[in-house]
């Protein structure tokens, strides 16, 4: 497999923003999940509403595989510079796969308050791979990916985002 079969990340982000735009209100906030979701949210933010509050969420302390793999990834501080209580949260991740990260993210958000609503936006929706009853509200692209592959969002030195397939 090569990268040619994956679309350009910036194009996907623009398409995703177009889908999200009708639902943005004064009560909306944008939350990116570390690390790929934070990068995607940074690109989405000016396209949606540059005045909308935005933050970043680290789910390391809420993961369900801690017993298996421990705490090895670099933990990045969660920054939510607004009240979560009562907000309409647009949660952003790069790839929706098993749904476990999103489960962890929702638990984390609820420890900050009770949001009015949480909607999920992802660049790539890996169809058929869900292990939990979770679905994306907005997806840049729905894609069937073989179980032997991962899709990563990569940020290059110039800040450009790129989607990449990795064989396991």
């Amino acid at each position, binding site marked *: 497999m090569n990268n040619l079969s994956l679309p350009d990340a910036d194009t996907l982000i623009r398409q995703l923003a177009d889908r999200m735009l009708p639902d943005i209100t004064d009560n909306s906030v944008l939350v990116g999940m570390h690390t790929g979701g934070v990068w995607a949210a940074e690109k989405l933010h000016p396209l949606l509403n540059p005045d909308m509050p935005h933050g970043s969420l*680290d789910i390391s*302390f809420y993961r369900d595989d801690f017993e298996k793999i421990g705490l090895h990834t670099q933990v990045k501080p*969660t920054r939510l510079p607004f009240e979560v209580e009562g907000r309409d949260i647009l949660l952003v991740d790069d790839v929706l796969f098993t749904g476990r990260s999103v489960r962890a993210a929702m638990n984390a958000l609820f420890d*900050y308050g009770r949001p009015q609503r949480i909607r999920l936006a992802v660049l790539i929706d890996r169809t058929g791979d869900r292990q939990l009853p979770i679905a994306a509200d907005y997806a840049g692209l729905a894609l069937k990916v073989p179980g032997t592959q991962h899709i990563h969002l990569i940020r290059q030195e110039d800040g450009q985002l790129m989607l990449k397939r990795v064989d396991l």
Partner: protein
Amino acid sequence: MGANPQLNAQGELQHLLTIEGLPRSLLIHILDTAEGFVAVNQQEVRKVPLLRGKAIFNLFFEPSTRTRTTFEIAAKRLSADVINLNISASSQSKGETLLDTVDNLAAMQADMFVVRHAQSGAAHMIARHVAPHIHVVNAGDGRHAHPTQGLLDMFTIRKYKGEFHNLRVAIVGDVLHSRVARSQIHALTTLGVPEVRVIAPKTLLPGDMRQMGVQVYHDLAAGLHDVDVVIILRLQNERMRGARLPSSQEYFKYYGLTAEKLAHAKADAIVMHPGPMNRGVEIDSAVADGKQSVILPQVTFGIAVRMAVMSILAGNQG
């Protein structure tokens, strides 16, 4: 087991017994993880589910309020079940040995022991004894080490100073009896602080200071000249009864940190103290409560650092 009893076969932290011999990357990993827990401590629900169902025993063979409390809060914010045992008051007085106590608690399915003991090496002994799935944190052993205090001090320094490689740090006071000072010196040198000074009368300094890579001063003003960080050690009252010091008034006159003495340090120097403070002995109240003091933030950061240590240990397999 490798050369370092604190690390497992994969080189991961299995126990935290001393900072001595730990690689720099591991110290940085602990400090970075603690940053994440500082954010948790600002959440509306100051709790994460990481250690749900784990049993952590605080084994305090020596009295301590602050350290025990911060370990307890840290464990509870990780959702662990915490059991506090002040053992000086129970089984030890009935003649049970230390390892018998540990075996009994292990049989109650302990996952982690946080140990404070007056004997140097007590936590090491427990770590060698327990089954591989049990983790041990040294919360202070004799004159030897107090690694989580050392780490929270490093976290505090990094918070206020940003970097370690350009700092001059002075540790003032009873270094001889201080497990805190030993842990601080190992941490500072491992993290690349180029100049660590100790300032104390000869009677309160151990003989191996220069081997530990520190500069020795006996004059407070000279030792504080141009430093970025001043760490004041607690002068333990029981030392006063020995012949090492004439009186606490005399000690304050020469080694107590006053605003006048602090003026020798850099204008933006921070003042730290591991607590509990003896005001008017090792530190003047005006300095302890002054704008350069970061003594209370140290306590707050201590919770995040202990959460980091406990969660990193619990995630590693023996």
